[in-house]
């Protein structure tokens, strides 16, 4: 089937989508957006997190057909052209990236947290990131990065 979906602000069309296929697969394999990562395929790891109509969701658990007519924002859509989003900058500065596989999902989740919550407490950060696994055990620097991005946003 054909799926029409707005991705990162642009109307896109995916053809030959299998009816049981995930939005994650369609994004990566049909729309050329490999930023969202495929790890667990069961909603445990959060590496495939995207915004779906403004809300973070595991794109592996959304049927591609369910995205018809909806708005998707992936990690590729966080930066403004060449300018990284403050959350991305903070991850770079804090060294919150080891192997990098969990990073796209964490960026989307952290982006959402900071958009919704001014000055998040550590408990709020941990709760918000609870669905994103990092197996390099890089959580301390990830928390640093989220705190830094949140603090910068406060100042703006």
């Amino acid at each position: 089937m054909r799926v029409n979906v707005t991705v990162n602000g642009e109307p896109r069309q995916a053809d030959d989508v299998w009816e049981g296929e995930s939005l994650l697969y369609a994004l990566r394999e049909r729309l050329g957006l490999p930023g969202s990562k495929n790890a667990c395929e069961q909603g445990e790891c959060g590496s495939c997190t995207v915004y779906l109509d403004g809300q973070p969701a595991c794109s592996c658990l959304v049927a591609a057909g369910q995205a018809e007519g909806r708005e998707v924002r992936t990690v590729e859509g966080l930066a403004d052209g060449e300018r990284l989003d403050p959350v991305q900058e903070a991850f770079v500065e804090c060294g919150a990236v080891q192997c990098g596989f969990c990073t796209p999902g964490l960026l989307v989740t952290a982006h959402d947290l900071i958009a919704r919550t001014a000055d998040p407490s550590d408990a709020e950060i941990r709760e918000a990131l609870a669905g994103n696994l990092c197996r390099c055990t890089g959580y301390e620097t990830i928390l640093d990065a989220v705190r830094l991005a949140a603090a910068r946003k406060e100042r703006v």
Partner: protein
Amino acid sequence: MEFLRPVSLAEALEARAAHPDAVPIAGGTDVMVELNFDHRRPAALLDLARVPELFGHSTVDGRIRIAAATPYARIIDELGDRLPGLAMASRTVGSPQIRNRGSVGGNLGAASPAGDTHPALLAAGAEVEIASTRGIRRLPVEEFYLGVKRNALEPDELIIAVHLEPASGPQQFSKVGTRNAMVIAVCAFALALHPKHRRVGTGIGSAAPTPRHAPAAEEFVAGELPWDRPVPLADSLLRRFGELVAEAAAPIDDVRGSAGYRRHALSVLARRTLTWAWTEYSCV
């Protein structure tokens, strides 16, 4: 595979009747796992995410009606004050991403004994609203669970809502797992005090082929609680309540825990939740 995309409840029921072998999908948090892992290849997917009647909540005859596909995140944000037990259980589901998509209707449809909201639905005396082109029926939730991942839906029916009395007393939910997030319950327990009727509701999860009440525990504690004189509860009462809850379970040994551990943990959860709920009752 077909992808059916109704945009109204009437269309969804027509599609369900015409395609009894279709698998309904809303948030997708259970169904997509089965598809991704090749555990299921249904003839069709029936996408319910575009059916406006399946989202939102309202008050009907003094009870709260939650449309089946309303995500957990909305139950937590919008109904936490009136349905604290269900909101607590909803908070323990998966992660924020999962709670943005998953719904009580999906929990009921999957009918896993480990579904997080079942104990809270049981304790609160919820009813399930079921529809088909033949009409609408309502079923007490305890009659909805038939076995492991089996429920009372006919092939042409859809779960369209749950109905619950707004809390008339303290409610609690507690769950055992290896961490706070992303955990399938080793066992879970929900409790609701109904002071007006001098009744106590209970719900056991993940410790029997279906979610179930602990009727003997409910009867015992409703009779023993000092409703008019809310003093701290005697240890003997709490222990007996815990024993009766554990006796109501029929757990198995599996990868998540042994039957013996589950029975013990349930007796602890029962004591704790009753203590918390009674403390709240005493302070009001």
